[in-house]
């Protein structure tokens, strides 16, 4: 097959931001997630839990509550005091309405999705109506009492609201606006521990029970009409920060500051009896830091913590069949490509949220055997750090293959820089006169001859900009899909000869454009899943596509149909272990010398796909082992040839952020060890262990 020299890069200091709040959309099976840096992400559960949309954050934006309303509309509210509606087609905050109550701590939508209630810093609860055309409109102010409203919950019928504050809970009548009941939460605490009790989250059941979780680590069940405590469970010694109820109201999940989540279920006291009680059933410890957001879906418990992990834990009793659906999923690294590689110049561009770093790879002049570490003759060098001006975070960035152009885009500005290499040092100059395009750019791709830059924009359009030599650029053309679409393009791929361009928009349509005539060439047949990576082969001009359900397709652009190899793979099916991988493939690269080799990678593995060899059969009784590289090394030549198959998987470099072929003998892998991320997280709650 081949021997590769691997540049193992571990100096990309990416620290993802923690998860702050989540909202689940039941009919669409989507999860919206907001992070502490203001970024909002949407995960599509139907498309194998792929992060289909990402709105980058803002330095001053902090999202405290998210909710889905009126079907597909996403609203967020934060400490800046505004209710923001997010435009998921153009991936930006669309409209902001000021709540006039100070920072907004919580927001909840009623069952129909027609009204939004917000809890503000000054202690007031305000109602807003969701306007069908767009935005929200103020309806009325409910009773105001001193003390910030930290959590809100609607009664399923929409007639009452439960609001949690510091030291007390209120139940408000929505129609009259008055407080129907006020319950003091701080009474049942021993005198020695008397401090203020913060009610972090609240839930209102249709039976009239109000469930609250507070900073003493208690989950308490109240009868709102009488104002009495029905049941109290102390779940942890640190605060219980989040609470979520299932749709059937027989199970709740609680997240604590210590990283543990607990499930409570409403179970009969005696088997078959009528009387039911809430019992703590399952403890989970998936996180190391505070769990600030939990969601209860019909089949799974979802928790997001300040350690930047999203954990989806399916409930065994709800899962219909034993299979990959019942597996625990943990997402830490984003499903987007954050590293660009300039192959000829051997440079790597790292995209952080507010700056870019350009590094030159080191080199060695020794050779060695399989598995050896070679000494470096030249260390990797940090050449450049570009800080983005302004509070907005970076949407996308790219570096040209020759290493002389760097471009990046934020929500309102596009920057293009010319980089001059003088010996060992570099000088950077900003390119003036950048064409005025509709911003932001969602993806940037440089042509392989570094002469053109492709900018992905909204409504499915792609701008082609020509890069002129001494430091200038000119807008050449805008490519648009024939049918027109409202979604933005999020992936681009260009061919090596500069004739073809493939673009994927948010509605999962792949369009191929001809760059010689600047018009639309063909559309790849629709598939039911999102595209996670695509690339065009340098010699055969075949478009290689990988989907979020781990399927691989190869489409021939000149012939406008799938290739024979692709049809053969689809007929026989891919191996079960290949389809049961957690993370999507984020980058595809080709070997310039060998036309049948494709390099793919996801977070936990690196695979070289050799199209000339047969695919492993997925039949359960005769299944070939998928990851068989280590066994093949020990076999003799004829035995090896019998067991050889197309997928050559290497799991040595984990977790991978990026992998690429620099030339036919050189690979570069960018890893981000989990321990390096953990060491830079905020302080966790101390776990007292015996003997330490």
């Amino acid at each position, binding site marked *: 097959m081949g021997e590769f020299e691997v540049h193992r890069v571990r100096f990309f200091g990416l620290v993802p931001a923690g998860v702050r709040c989540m909202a689940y959309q039941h009919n669409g099976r989507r999860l919206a997630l907001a992070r502490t840096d203001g970024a909002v992400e949407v995960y599509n559960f139907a498309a194998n839990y792929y992060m289909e949309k990402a709105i980058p954050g803002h330095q*001053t934006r*902090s999202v405290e509550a998210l909710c889905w309303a009126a079907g597909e509309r996403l609203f967020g509210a934060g*400490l*800046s*005091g505004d209710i923001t509606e997010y435009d998921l087609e153009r991936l930006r905050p669309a409209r902001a309405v000021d709540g006039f109550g*100070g*920072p907004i*701590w919580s927001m909840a939508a009623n069952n129909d999705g027609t009204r939004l209630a917000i809890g503000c*810093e000054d202690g007031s609860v305000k109602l807003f109506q969701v306007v069908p055309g767009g935005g929200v409109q103020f309806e009325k102010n409910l009773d105001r009492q001193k003390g*910030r409203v930290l959590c809100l919950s609607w009664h399923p019928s929409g007639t009452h609201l439960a609001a949690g504050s510091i030291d007390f809970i209120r139940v408000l009548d929505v129609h009259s606006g008055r407080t129907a009941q006020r319950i003091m939460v701080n009474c049942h605490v021993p005198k020695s521990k008397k*401090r203020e009790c*913060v009610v972090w989250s609240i839930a209102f059941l249709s039976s009239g029970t109000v469930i609250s979780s507070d*900073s003493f680590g208690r989950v308490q069940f109240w009868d709102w009409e009488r104002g009495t405590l029905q049941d109290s469970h102390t779940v942890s*010694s*640190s*605060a219980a920060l989040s609470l979520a109820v299932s749709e059937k109201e027989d199970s709740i999940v609680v997240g604590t*500051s210590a990283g543990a989540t607990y499930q409570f279920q409403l179970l009969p006291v005696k088997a078959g009896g009528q009387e039911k009680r809430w019992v703590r059933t399952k403890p989970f410890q998936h996180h*190391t830091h*505070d769990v600030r957001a939990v969601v209860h879906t019909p089949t799974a418990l979802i928790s997001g913590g300040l350690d930047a992990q999203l954990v989806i834990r399916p409930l065994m009793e709800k899962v219909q069949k034993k299979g990959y659906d019942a597996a625990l999923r943990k997402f830490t690294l984003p499903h987007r490509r954050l590293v660009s590689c300039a192959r000829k110049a051997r440079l790597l561009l790292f995209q952080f949220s507010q700056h870019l770093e350009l590094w030159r790879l080191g080199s060695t002049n020794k050779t060695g055997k399989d598995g050896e570490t070679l000494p470096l003759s030249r260390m990797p060098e940090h050449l450049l750090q570009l800080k983005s001006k302004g509070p907005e975070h970076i949407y996308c960035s790219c570096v040209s293959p020759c290493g002389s152009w760097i471009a990046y885009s934020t929500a309102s500005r596009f920057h293009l820089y010319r980089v001059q290499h003088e010996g060992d040092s570099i000088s950077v100059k900003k390119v003036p006169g950048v064409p005025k395009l509709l911003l932001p750019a969602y993806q940037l791709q440089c042509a392989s001859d570094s002469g053109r830059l492709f900018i992905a924009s909204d409504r499915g359009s792609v701008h082609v900009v020509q890069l002129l030599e001494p430091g200038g650029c000119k807008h050449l053309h805008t490519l648009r899909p024939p049918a027109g679409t409202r979604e933005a393009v999020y992936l681009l791929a260009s061919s090596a000869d500069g004739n073809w361009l493939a673009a994927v928009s948010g509605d999962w349509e792949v369009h191929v454009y001809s760059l010689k005539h600047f018009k639309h060439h063909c559309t790849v047949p629709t598939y039911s899943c999102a595209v996670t990576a695509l690339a065009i082969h340098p010699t055969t001009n075949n478009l290689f596509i990988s989907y979020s359900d781990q399927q691989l397709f190869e489409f021939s652009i000149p012939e406008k149909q799938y290739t024979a190899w692709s049809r053969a793979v689809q007929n026989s099916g891919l191996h079960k272990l290949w389809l049961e991988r957690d993370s999507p493939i984020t980058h595809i690269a080709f070997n310039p010398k060998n036309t049948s080799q494709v390099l793919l990678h996801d977070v936990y593995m690196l695979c070289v796909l050799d199209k000339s060899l047969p695919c492993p059969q997925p039949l359960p009784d005769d299944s070939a082992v998928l990851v068989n590289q280590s066994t093949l090394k020990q076999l003799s030549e004829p035995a090896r040839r019998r067991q050889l198959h197309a997928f050559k998987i290497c799991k040595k470099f984990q977790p991978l952020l990026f992998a690429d072929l620099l030339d036919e003998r050189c690979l570069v892998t960018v890893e981000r060890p989990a*321990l390096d991320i*953990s*060491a*830079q*997280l*905020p*302080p*966790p*709650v*101390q*776990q007292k*262990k015996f*003997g*330490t």
Partner: protein
Amino acid sequence: MVRRRRRQEKEAAPVAPAAAPPSSEDDEAPEELSFGTARAEAEAERKLVGEAARRHRELLKEKRRRRQELFAEQKRRKLLPEALLQELAAAPPARADERSPAAAPDKRPQGVSAKQNEGRIPGQVKKDKAGGTRSKGNYIAVHLKDENLTGLHQQTAKDFIHSQLYGPGTNRTSANEFFSIANKKDLVKKAAVQFVDKSWGLEKKQRATKFTKYWVARKVTNTL
């Protein structure tokens, strides 16, 4: 004749004992001085003391006079020349418009005193910078539009969350200690996760790398 002799004796007698210091060994009675000499002595002493006191008083008066003059001089220096004061009285509205209304009463006296400070040191020459250059000064330029109530509310809210989650009552530990517990409880004890803090001696290392670069460059230019 006897009286004259006694008077002469008396006149001679006090002189002799006055000239000779009375010896402490003798148990004699103190010498007898005549009234006239005693009076003369007392007057002389009084005169001396009076002189000393007068001189002392003169000295104090001189000091006080000098201090008063100094204060008068300082007061004169502190106040601006008349022309400038009149100009200032006419000019305040221009500066008050820039500040926000809430901060206007605070800012104005400060602004005026800043001007006074500038006026006090007329001798210092302000360095003129050309349009494009910028000095790395110890100032921060802020957008006044951003410094308003919303920012204050947000900061209070963030402080509340921070104190609730990371404040004194919570049982927090550092990430290094948390993740090193597993290493310490192992059968084979290993070092902590962040055994070496990369920020130790950071400045020294940076200066060392800069110096190496400079030295190598100089060597190269010298040999060429």
